[in-house]
């Protein structure tokens, strides 16, 4: 049994098609990313999976339970970190955690033990008695994560987990998600941050205009874009005629100047490098650095979004 199964999941808001016959399965212990531009249908999908929005068509099962027919049973097995940090500003960090445990039916002793564990896991101990309204955005995000983990769920849903966070908080959030997955938790996250999907996810579904256009591991998705392989070169001083030579080479698909570097797109980096070595010898150019790069997930994403846009 998979942790999450969606079959033909569709949502209309009046005439507006928000999610269009989406199908996917998330394996137990997997970090699964839902990547797409703003308004693509990511949040609507996560809301359907977490019982907040009723699908117009299709079915979804979470931890083996149909979210429409057995919502209470499904809810016992997941925690949710929504895009907005929905903590109770008037309550302290400790009381927010205790309340979260209380509505999950945990005994007072269990709630206290678990809240202490979470304060330690999320490094919130020194803020224990602070009211949530006095927390920074990053600390509030951590508290929301803590409240979602209070019942030790098997599945964790995160909607744009690092949205609006600074670099340190983002890194801590990602490290925590990885730790949770290592302990066997299934993680389903939506993001419009390609780097986040690339760094965190075992598999990624790319959703554009309400439809899934690709599902695979980040590396496999990158392999689909051979034309985006590139070589990045930098010189102490650009040799005269370099741009003309690059553009004239039949091994080069495109050339772009990125700051002090040249990015050369080629479908055959090794042949290009051979010709570059000859060129450097002839021109006695002083090479500073050279890197061969595969296509990034961003290249794949842009290509898929562009193609979906052309398709209608």
């Amino acid at each position, binding site marked *: 049994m998979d942790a999450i199964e969606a079959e033909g999941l569709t949502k209309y808001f009046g005439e507006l098609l928000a999610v269009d016959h989406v199908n996917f399965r998330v394996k137990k212990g997997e970090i699964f990313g839902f990547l797409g531009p703003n308004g693509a249908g990511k*949040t609507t999908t996560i809301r359907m999976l977490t*019982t907040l929005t009723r699908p117009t068509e299709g079915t979804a099962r979470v931890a083996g339970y149909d979210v429409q027919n057995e919502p209470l049973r499904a*809810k016992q097995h997941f925690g949710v970190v*929504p895009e*907005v940090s929905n*903590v109770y500003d008037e*309550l302290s960090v400790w*009381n927010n955690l205790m309340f979260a445990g209380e*509505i999950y039916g945990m005994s007072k002793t269990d709630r206290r033990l678990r809240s202490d564990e979470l304060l330690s896991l999320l490094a919130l101990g020194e803020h224990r008695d602070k009211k949530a309204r006095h927390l920074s955005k990053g600390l509030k995000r951590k508290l929301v994560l803590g409240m979602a983990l209070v019942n*030790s769920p098997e599945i964790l849903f995160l909607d744009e987990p690092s949205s609006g966070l600074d670099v340190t908080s983002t890194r801590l959030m990602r490290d925590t998600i990885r730790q949770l997955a290592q302990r066997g938790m299934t993680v389903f996250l939506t993001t419009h941050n390609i780097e986040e999907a690339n760094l965190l996810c075992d598999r990624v579904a790319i959703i554009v205009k309400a439809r899934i256009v690709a599902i695979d591991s980040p590396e496999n998705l990158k392999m689909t874009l051979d034309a985006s392989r590139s070589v990045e070169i930098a010189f102490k001083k650009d040799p005269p005629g370099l741009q003309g030579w690059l553009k004239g080479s039949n091994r080069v698909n495109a050339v772009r100047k990125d700051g002090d570097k040249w990015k050369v797109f080629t479908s055959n980096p090794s042949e290009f490098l051979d010709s570059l070595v000859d060129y450097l010898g002839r021109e006695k150019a002083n090479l500073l650095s050279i890197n061969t790069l595969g296509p990034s997930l961003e290249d794949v994403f842009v290509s898929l979004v562009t193609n979906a846009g052309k398709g209608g």
Partner: protein
Amino acid sequence: MDTASSAIRIRPVRYLAAAWAVARKDMRIYYLRPGNLMFGVLFPVFLFFSFAVGRDLPVEILIPGLTAMAMFFGSSSTGAMAIPTERKTKTYERLLVAPIPPISILLGQTLSGFIFGALFASVPIALGMAWFGMSVASSPVLVLAIALSSFTFSALGIMFAALPTENPGDIMMLLNFVRLPLLFVSGIFISLDDVGDVGLVLAAISPLTYSNDLLRWAVGGTSYFGPAIDVLGIVLFAIVFLALALLLHERARKSDRMAGKRKRAKEAASA
């Protein structure tokens, strides 16, 4: 890793415990909110005195009327303030994704309004006894009247809070549109003996009538309908309000009107 099933008790008792948790949370957060104090405390007190002062009403009429009004406004305002506020801060969704049925959430919010109204009601009763030398004909009936009335009026506020809005002002406005006219047909300012046949029909469809009448019986030992009809009337209104609250909140949730609005706004922003 702990499994969810080991950490969670799945029993109806759990749902009641969750309702109590929701009630205590609302008590901590919303009792002292300015909107709640304004519409739930100051508004009825000033309104009552603007009508009562100078009319030389006996204390057995004055205090039950003030108590009924205090509960009517106080109990119905708490949920009407809390629910749209929590929709706005998205904390309401925290309750909706928890493994508790919708009745637990609504019952918890009703309990919070009930306790607020009951506490507020004790102030005019205590003042009446301490300052005006008011005696109570039946203490058990007084307690019953306060308990039943506070619960029913709280359920009324929860029912109105089903209106899918994130602005408490929208619900307060609609609630006052109903609460204010009911004040004048419920025997608070004009005795039921003087309202005529049409007035009596209108009085019969107001929960405040039975609350005020039962309180008068508890304090002065006389009432228009008698305690049995008053209790029956209040209980019937409580059942109707709670049932309608459950139905309307479920309907609002299933209609996804709020989520649809947000989605359309997002579409417009990204277009």
